[in-house]
Each structure stands twice: as C-alpha cells, then as structure tokens.
C-alpha cells in the first residue's frame, strides 16, 4: 500500500467531488518521475541533484584556486607539491532542488467553466508531487495581479496532502499581472530554483515581462500554458456585447463567422508568439489543453520537453 493509500485509508481530506485531483494509479506513476533541471543548484540537503562545491561529497570533481577563507582540509597538497599552487579539491555532492510552482488564479482561469482551473491545479499538483518524490523542495504560489497565497517549501512525499489542501483552497479572481507577481515572488524567495508558471498567459501587460522578471532574478522559468480550445470561438453570433471577464471591459460587436475565423487565426498567432518568445529565451514551454488527456500531458508531454525524465 502506497503512502497515499495509507493516508486516504485514515483521513479523507477531500470534499465530495474534489478527491479525484489525483487518483491512486496516477500517483503511483508519478513517483517514478523527477523533475529535470538544466542547471544544478546548491541545496541545503543532500538530494539527487549534483552540485560542485567543496564539501562532504565522495566523488572528486575538479580543482579551483584557493581563496582566503576556504577550508584548509580541502587543499590538494599533492598538486601544491608538484606545482606550488594552492588548489582546493571540489567534490560532486547530491543536493536538493527548489521548485516553485506559480499557479495563475486570475479571473480568466475560471472562464468557461471549472475545467480550465481544475486542469491547472491538477498540473500544479502533479509537478509538485514529482518534485517531492525526488526529494526536492517544492513551494506553491497562487497569483493573479499579485501573489495571493503561498505555501512554504516542503520536502518529502508526505507533504503532498498539504499541497492538495493548498490547491483546493485556490480560487480564481482578479486581473492577470505576472510581472508584478514575479517580482514579489523573487523578493520573497532567496533560494534560486525552477519557477514553473502554470497560466493561460492572458496578461494585459504582456506575459513576457513576467517571464523576464523571473529570469533576471536568476530563477529558471518554465511555462505551462493552460489553454482551452473553446476560447478560440465564443459560440455566439450576431449583435453581442463582448465583456472581458477580468477587467469588465466591454465592446459592442456584430459577430460574424468570418470575424470568428479571423479571431481564431489571431489566437493561433498569439500562441505562436508565446512559443517563439520562449524558444528565443530557452524557456521550456508546453501547452496543456484542458480537453486533452491529463495523464499523457503529465507523463509524455513533460518528458518530451524535458520537464521530466
């Protein structure tokens, strides 16, 4: 019996209808995954990532110049004897990774029904669980125009239920302002790591500013773009009043099929622009359609783009 099964056997935290964020079979499959990182970050605990620093590692990795203050114990006296240079031995040490899941909770995430936000929450939970399974530190942040809720970094699979509770408590409201939220996030989290942005990217100020803000603070951003194909066609025709669900901005239009087709093209172009931006910045980018199979997205799609190995 897995950990989740044991826990569920004792306590049912989920309200009716909410306990299927992850089923048991899905969680067992996630346990074999871990988050891949393009870079190695220094961690405070030993983990499954390698970092090069002078420390208690076993496997020798490299040398570097001695600087005042370095521990004398790591001086390579053999090299000093041969070349009279003070070099410090560096060992590869397994360290944990800081993973920050930034969940978009703006009003647009709740548009068109509960599927979109639900999908986003399940993605966030899956990412978090993968991180916890690999002994990484996982923190969650809910944001819209600012960071609205926070879950401090947690480590170990046993913390997944805290994450579930956090995600269940998330609600959609407010406008999207990723840049502001990113600045707040960077200021509050000194430890660098992977910042996975789960969002529909409907940011009036441009999501690019938010991604750049993360990058500039030396976090490694990843973008999970939650999309709903129904948003490419509002379904209505004729004389209508288009209302932005976040800002309330409205506009009278006489909507025709041709106009909808043009909008669909504009929507596709916008997604291409996002993809192009991420590629140019080497930011991993993946789209997750709410109508697509969730398990495949998590297991296959993430692996394809290198989010998991």
């Amino acid at each position: 019996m897995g950990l989740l099964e044991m826990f569920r056997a004792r306590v049912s935290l989920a309200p009716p209808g909410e306990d299927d964020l992850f089923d048991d079979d899905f969680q067992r499959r996630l346990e074999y995954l871990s988050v891949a990182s393009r870079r190695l970050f220094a961690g405070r605990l030993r983990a499954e990532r390698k970092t090069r620093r002078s420390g208690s590692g076993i496997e020798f990795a490299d040398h570097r110049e001695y600087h005042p203050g370095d521990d004398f114990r790591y001086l390579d006296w053999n090299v000093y004897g041969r070349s009279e240079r003070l070099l410090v031995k560096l060992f590869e040490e397994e360290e944990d990774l800081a993973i920050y899941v930034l969940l978009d909770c703006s009003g647009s995430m709740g548009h068109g029904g509960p599927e979109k936000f639900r999908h986003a929450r399940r993605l966030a939970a899956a990412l978090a669980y993968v991180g916890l399974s690999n002994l990484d530190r996982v923190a969650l942040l809910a944001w819209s125009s600012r960071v609205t809720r926070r879950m401090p970094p947690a480590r170990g699979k046993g913390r997944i239920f805290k994450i579930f509770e956090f995600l269940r408590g998330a609600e959609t409201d407010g406008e999207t302002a990723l840049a502001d939220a990113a600045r707040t996030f960077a200021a509050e989290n000194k430890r660098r790591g992977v910042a996975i942005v789960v969002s529909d990217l409907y940011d009036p100020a441009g999501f690019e500013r938010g991604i750049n803000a993360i990058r500039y603070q030396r976090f490694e951003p990843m973008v999970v773009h939650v999309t709903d194909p129904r948003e490419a066609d509002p379904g209505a025709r004729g004389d209508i009043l288009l209302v932005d669900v976040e800002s309330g901005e409205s506009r009278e239009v006489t909507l025709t099929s041709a106009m909808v087709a043009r909008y669909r093209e504009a929507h596709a172009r916008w997604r291409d622009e996002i993809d192009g931006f991420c590629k140019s910045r080497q930011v991993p980018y993946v789209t997750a359609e709410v109508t697509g199979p969730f398990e495949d997205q998590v297991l296959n799609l993430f692996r394809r783009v290198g989010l998991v190995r």
Partner: protein
Amino acid sequence: MEFLGLAQSQLLTLLAAFGAGVVVLYILKLRRRRVPVPFARLWARVLVERPTTTLFARLKRWLSLLLQLLLLALLVGALGDPRLRGASRPGRSVVLLLDGSASMKATDVPGGRARIARDIARRIVRELGPNDRLLLAQMDAEVTALSPMTDDAGALEQSLAGYEPRDTGADFAHALRFAQDALRGMDHREIIVVGDGAYDPPQDALGAVRLEGTALRFEALGRRGRNVGITAFAVRRYPLDKSRYEVMLEVRSWSDRREVLDLTLLADGAPVEVTRLQLDPGATVQRVLPDQSGANEALEARLARADGSHDDLPADDRAYATLPERRRARILAVGEGNRYLEAALLLDEYLDVQEASLAEAPQRLRSERFDVVIFDGATLPVPSGVGALYLRPEGEASPREPEPAFAFAPRGGALGFSQVQQRHPMMRWTRDLEGAHIGRIRRYHPRPEDQVLGSSEAGPLVIAGERSGGRFVLLSFDVRESDLPLLVSWPVLVINAMDWFTGEDANYLSSFRTGEVWRIPVPAGVEHATLTPANGGPALTLPVVEGRAVVRGTRAGLFRLRAGPDTTLLAGNLSDPSESQCAPRPTLTVDGVRATRPTPGRAGVRRELWGYLVLLALGILFLEWITWHRRVTV
C-alpha cells in the same frame, strides 16, 4: 375576398397593435447579449478592422423587421379566415321535421318506417354543407325540438336517438308554424319533412300556413297501407244496472283486400268474447256488444288477422276502455212516504235507501253519514257536503224561498216542461219530459248561481245549485200532482240526480284519445299527480290545474293515475282514422307549393385561405431559421 372569421376592423386592430409592438421593439436600442471572453485585448486585434454596425448589418435588421411584419400580417390574415368571394357558398338554415305520428310505426318497410326515417335524417345531416345549420324536431301531436340549430353534424346525429314515434296524429300545421318561427329572420330557409306524408292540410285557427319564401322539401317513405284498425272503442255501465255494461266499437279497413279478423274482448285481462269479422276493402263495421259483464275496471279489444299474419300498423289493433267505479250510495228519504220516489230509487241496486220521518230525521242526520237526503215536502237543515233532493220543499230549511201562492195549470190544460237543459247530467236521457203534465207548481226564485234545468211558463220546475258545500236539486212540484211518474224520464231523472250527487258522472269517459290533452279530475287539495303505464314504465308527474291533472296523451294503453290517496285507471286509444290510414303519400303540397326532394349541401371545394397563409408563414419561419442558423441574418 371576404373574411368569415374575425371582422376586418378586428383584424386591422390586431395588425396595428402587434405591428406597432414589433416596430417599437426594432426601434428600441438592441439589448445585446453579453458574451464574456477571457481576454478582450485579443479581440481588439480583429475588431479594429471591422466596425460593429455596418450598413449591411443595418440592412439585415431592416430585412428582419420586414420578415417579422410579413409573418404578423400572414397570421392575422389567417385569423380572419379569408375566402375568395366567388368560392364562398351561402349556408342554409334548415328545420328537419321528423314525422313522429303513429303511422310511422307501420311495418310496411323492412325495419319499420321509424328506422328508415332515422336513416334518412342521418343522411341529410351528413350531406349538410359546410355553412348549413339544421334544427331537428319531431312532429306528432306536438312539436319537440331534438336539437338546437347547429352545424355540428355529430351532435345532430346524436340527437337522432331522441326520435321515437308516438301514438298520436301529426299536427302538421303546428309543426310548420314551429319551423317558420325557428327560421324567422334567417337566410336560405328550408323545411325538410321526413315522413309518410299522410297529413291534414296545414290549416289552423290562424288560417292556412304560408311558406313565406321558405323552401319545402319532402322525403316520402312507406310502401303501402294495408291496415285494419279499431277506430272507436267505448264502454258504459247501464244507468239502472251498474253491474252490466255495453261495449261499442268500430273497426275499419284500409286494406286493398278482404280481411278476415278475430276481435277479442278482454275483461280485466281475461278474454270474454271472440268475434270473427269480415271486412271488404274500405269497409267499416260498428258493433255494439250489449249486456256485458265480468269486468270491474278495464276492457281491452284486440284485433288480429284470422290467418295469424299482421297488418301494416299494429298500433291501432288494440283499444282500451275503463269502467266507472261502482259504489253504493247511502240515501235518506225524509217524508211520509212516496211510492213513486221509492220505486224509482229501487231501480238502482247500488243505492242504499233508508227512510225516516220528519221527526226522526234530525237524529239520524246527526248520527249517520248519508250521501244524499231526499226531502219530500218538509225540509231540514242538511249537513255540509251532503247532496239534497227537494220535492216541492216547504219551511225555513228550503234552499230557495217559495212564493206563498201556487201557480196552477190553466183550465183545460196543464203545466209542462217548456224548456229542458238536456246537456246537464241531471237531464240526460229525459227527452220525454216534454210530455209531462203538471197540475200546479210553487214558484221559487233561483239565484244567479243556480241553474234552471227545466221550466214551464209558470216558473222553474227543476233548479240545481249548491248550498252548504253540497249540491241540491229542487223540484217545484209534487210528482203526485203530475203524470211524470208515468214517464220513463221520472226514474231516470231520480237516478241521474243520485249519480250527480254521488259524483257518478254520466259524462264519464271510458277512454281518452291520444294526441289530446287529458284533464282528469283529482281530489281537492292535490297539487300534482303521477301517471304510470299499467304495464310498467317510467312514471310521469302531472300538474294539477283547476282540480284536474293535465297531460297530453302520447301513448295508447292503460295508465294508473295516483293523485293523493286516490288511484284511477285511465285508458288511452289512438282512435285516429287519419293515422290508421297509413298509406304513404308521395307528394306534399303546402301553400300551393309542391315540395321537392331534399338536396345535399353544396360542400364543394373548401376555398379557405387561412391554411395557405399559415403554410406561407411557416415557410418564412423556416427560411428565417435557416438564415439565422447559418448566420446570414445575424
């Protein structure tokens, strides 16, 4: 084009009201449907290229308005039920008179005439035109509307179940007047008569019936009239022997061949005499069967062919009669003895005559109940409700005060009955009274309410009237001073008086004629009576008017009338030769116009346009739906 549904003014009002509503709704600013989108800025990229209200969009709205108005006009027009003027057909107003007289019970056609008449009426109803209206009525001694004036063929056919011939004649004039009244003020009036046509000329107290432009149609039915019937049947008790009676009947043949018949007389249901009759075609036989006995209350005559076959009309093969009730009346004769009077009273065995002197009479009048008191000379007060016969009364108790002096017969002559009211029950069968000779009389002065039944030049001889709630008869002479006792009229006069006092009416009817109004005397104080067929059947409650239960007899047979504590047996007979002569007549002429055969209603092609208008509206709706669904007009 004309409108048979809503009036043009109503249609215009509807069109104006709803049209104004539609136009106002189009003039008002369109309340747009709110469509939330997650990211309006993305829409801005598209919308900036296209204004929201283009000329084409406005045109589409005007096109939509025109379609709506066209739809409205089509629907309102359909409500008006428009017809092409040339295609509309005027509706007829028809009164269908179904002959319900006794002759319709004839069986000369398979199933009987009534069933054929019902079938013909059903066919006429089904052939009514779309605008025709018809009133169904049964015509017999009276006219009974079986349905209202309606174009509902189903209701008319259903009302045909109420048609049933009766044992009466047909009052054709009354039926025609009824039809004329029902059709008054209507266009294209028609009267259709379905029957055998054997009706009297339509004439009544108002004169001959005029058609006044009403078309008359006639559907004749019946094949022949080979019938023999009892046209009269009566019975009466002998006045002087009420246990016996004589029967009079008349049998008539309308057959075209010699008929051999058995006439059976039944007394209280038991056959008492069978007579074989032979009637030539058109012959009438009258039979008086004297000195009959055995029946207490009812007699029935049955006529049947000797070979066991039936004639065409069984309704007149039976006749019924009832006998008056026999009751012993108690008579008190007060006086010193009058043999002429006593001899006359002895003739009626149903009189219980007792004698009393003037001295003992008061005591007996107080202690005993008598129906009649006879005063020979002297008088006494009479109890209330008791009849009294006064023979030249004297004294204070005399009903009418006499003059002191007598009036004598002229020398060498005699007083006699110069005037006699033969129609009064007292004076029936007393024709030889005029040969009576009277020596002297005493003059009495009758009151205005009295009736002088017989009088001489010298004064009244017989006075009848009422006093103290009872009847009295006063003879102003002493029979012993006349030769009246030598005449047959004397005992008849006495017996008539006793019958008049005791209620035994010489006008007693042994049977009533169907089709007439029966007025049957009932006891005082009774407000309604119940008439029940003697052989079973539903009872009929009759009103009582002026002491008589009133009903129009429509059925032949024996009936029991219950009125208060009394029950009376009644007999009703068809006794109508015009009905017994049931041979059909192929033609019918009224007001000099010979009736033609009914014509079916001109159904034709129903040139109703409302259906096409609705179809067109549906087509436009379909077109509108397609254009909306394919986003052409949105």
